[in-house]
């Protein structure tokens, strides 16, 4: 085993790796190639219940230009070195900045961070991979462009390219991010540079305004995949509405999710409520306000009675529906009437606006997310159990009340079996709901690590047996999820991989594609 490197790519000798590293250095300079344990430390920590050594990189490369990346893939092809590309590298709960497999070289594009264009009139942006939401937010504010971002909860420290390429979600009307992507530049494994859609045509000025181009639509195959390295990315921004009215609707019983979803769905599909609504369980919001240890001690999941007490103490519903209206004050007034009428019928809902809940810390951060303002408040989740263990369990559900209740109950039951809490929410969809559960555990406690692993495995097994597929998963479980989608899809993915990357140098293992 090597002393020079903290890990080596699978099947690559130290000697071969020496040559590859020397070549990387000649392209990027010594300062942009990391191999020491100290330099690689920030690429190693994950929140998954597997040893960090399973995902330890052999090196990290910081490229800033397309030409450098073309040369890097050339070197990788020559020596058969696998590279794992990250943009802002904050895929927390999905594998962070660490590669899928031990020994892969991380290609870190954080420093490739130019905002190439923001068009105020057509409301779009074209950016490089390292641009953070915070950077773009400040740029838009500085230039008074009057455009809003849609971002995931890690807002300030994450970025639109990595988030959208992993098909992430946000909370404004543009919350299903990939729907609003428009045009990519991709370095292919053979070093060629593809611009998707209208970008393929020389002198076209419609790259960021028309998604489809001509012929098969290709952008999709570069998301959640390992078919290319995205180096430019276009997406649409929302013009700031004249008025914004965030609100929360609270319900007191878990079974009420049925009523909530049945009321929300038609409002969402018809556009009365335009944004990616969140239906958050009390345990998802609780960490912002309360400490777990004040309500439960010892092993096991938190009992329902404690959750009810906690919700009461901290002015939370058992379900908390966060949504907003965007438009002129008159439009919002009309829609507000429709919303309040719909939710008032059963007498179970408690409807709160900024006036009543404006100072509430949970309401505040939710309102920020729904208008694309920076906040990292949701990281409070990590204090619930402490110890930095987290995996997102993310099955897709129909936006149908009975289905969401069934998924919630099933998840909660499996979590409880392993002593874990249901920190769950349903988000986004018009016709679907991303059911998002933070499987929180203490990574410093070997017992909880083992339980969390087995629990997650069982969640995937049981859900797929019921026909519930997962939309995204951490790097320890990608093969398992790929299996659940059946052999034909897997074979097609493989065929594409062979055609586009015959040496298998790009992110082997991503989405179970090797």
């Amino acid at each position, binding site marked *: 085993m090597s002393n020079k490197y903290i890990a080596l790519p699978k099947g690559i000798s130290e000697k071969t790796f020496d040559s590859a590293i020397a070549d990387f250095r000649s392209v990027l300079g010594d300062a942009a190639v990391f191999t020491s344990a100290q330099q690689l430390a920030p690429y190693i920590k994950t929140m998954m219940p597997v040893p960090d050594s399973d995902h330890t990189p052999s090196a990290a490369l910081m490229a800033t230009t397309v030409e450098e990346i073309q040369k890097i893939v050339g070197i990788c092809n020559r020596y058969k070195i696998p590279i794992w590309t990250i943009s802002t590298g904050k895929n927390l709960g999905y594998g962070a900045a660490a590669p899928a497999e031990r020994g892969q070289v991380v290609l870190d594009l954080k420093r490739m961070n130019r905002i190439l264009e923001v068009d105020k009139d057509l409301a779009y942006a074209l950016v490089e991979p390292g641009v953070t939401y915070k950077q773009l937010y*400040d*740029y838009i504010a500085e230039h008074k462009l009057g455009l809003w971002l849609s971002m995931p909860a890690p807002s300030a420290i994450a970025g639109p390219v990595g988030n959208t390429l992993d098909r992430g979600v946000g909370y404004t009307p543009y919350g299903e991010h990939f729907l609003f992507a428009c045009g990519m530049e991709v370095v292919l494994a053979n070093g060629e540079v593809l611009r998707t859609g209208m970008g393929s045509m020389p002198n076209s000025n419609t790259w960021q305004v028309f998604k489809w181009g001509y012929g098969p639509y290709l952008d999709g195959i570069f998301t959640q995949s390992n078919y290319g390295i995205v180096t430019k990315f276009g997406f649409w921004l929302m013009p700031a509405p004249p008025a914004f009215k965030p609100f929360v609707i609270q319900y007191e019983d878990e079974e009420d999710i049925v009523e909530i979803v049945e009321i929300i769905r038609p409002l969402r599909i018809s556009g009365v409520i335009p944004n990616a609504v969140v239906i958050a369980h009390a345990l998802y919001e609780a960490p912002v306000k309360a400490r777990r240890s004040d309500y439960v001690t010892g092993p096991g999941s938190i009992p329902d009675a404690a959750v009810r007490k906690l919700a009461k103490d901290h002015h939370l519903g058992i379900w908390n529906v966060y949504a907003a209206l965007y438009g002129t004050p008159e439009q919002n007034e009309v829609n507000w009437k429709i919303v309040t009428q719909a939710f008032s019928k059963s007498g179970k809902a408690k409807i709160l606006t900024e006036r009543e809940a404006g100072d509430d810390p949970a309401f505040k951060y939710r309102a920020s997310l729904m208008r694309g303002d920076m906040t990292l408040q949701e990281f409070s989740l990590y204090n619930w159990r402490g110890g930095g263990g987290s995996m997102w369990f993310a099955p897709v559900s129909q936006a149908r009340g009975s289905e969401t209740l069934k998924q919630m109950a099933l998840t909660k039951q499996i979590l409880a079996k392993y002593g874990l809490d249901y920190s769950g929410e349903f988000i986004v969809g018009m016709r679907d709901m991303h059911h998002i559960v933070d499987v929180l555990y203490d990574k410093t406690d070997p017992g909880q690590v083992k339980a969390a692993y087995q629990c997650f495995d069982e969640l995937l097994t049981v859900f797929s047996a019921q026909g519930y597929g997962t939309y995204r998963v951490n790097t320890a479980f990608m093969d398992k999820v790929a299996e659940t989608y059946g052999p034909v899809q897997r074979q097609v993915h493989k065929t594409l991989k062979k055609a586009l990357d015959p040496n298998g140098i790009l992110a082997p293992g991503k989405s179970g594609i090797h």
Partner: protein
Amino acid sequence: MRKTKSVRTVTALMLSISVIAAMTADIACATAETNTEKGFRWRNGAEVYSKVCSYCHESQVGPRLFGRELPPEYIRTIVRNGSRAMPPFRPSEIDDESLARLAEYIQRN
């Protein structure tokens, strides 16, 4: 302003010489557009703190860092390695020099 080409953040791409200047005088870097040197620099420790750390450390997600005279070496180690619920930050996000100044800034405040 309709469109703007090739804008790096003011924090990106500062010559190391202007880093020294920025330490004595708190000037923003206006040369981002013409500067082609590689690298990533923040204006000063306060900027990194307010644009990154403060979102967690001023909102009760992480413990307060000010007023505790935390040793810079400790701060640097936590930032690079992460610690339990605290995610690590890479040199591509916060370069070594900026991190050193951030750590001093936190210790001083």
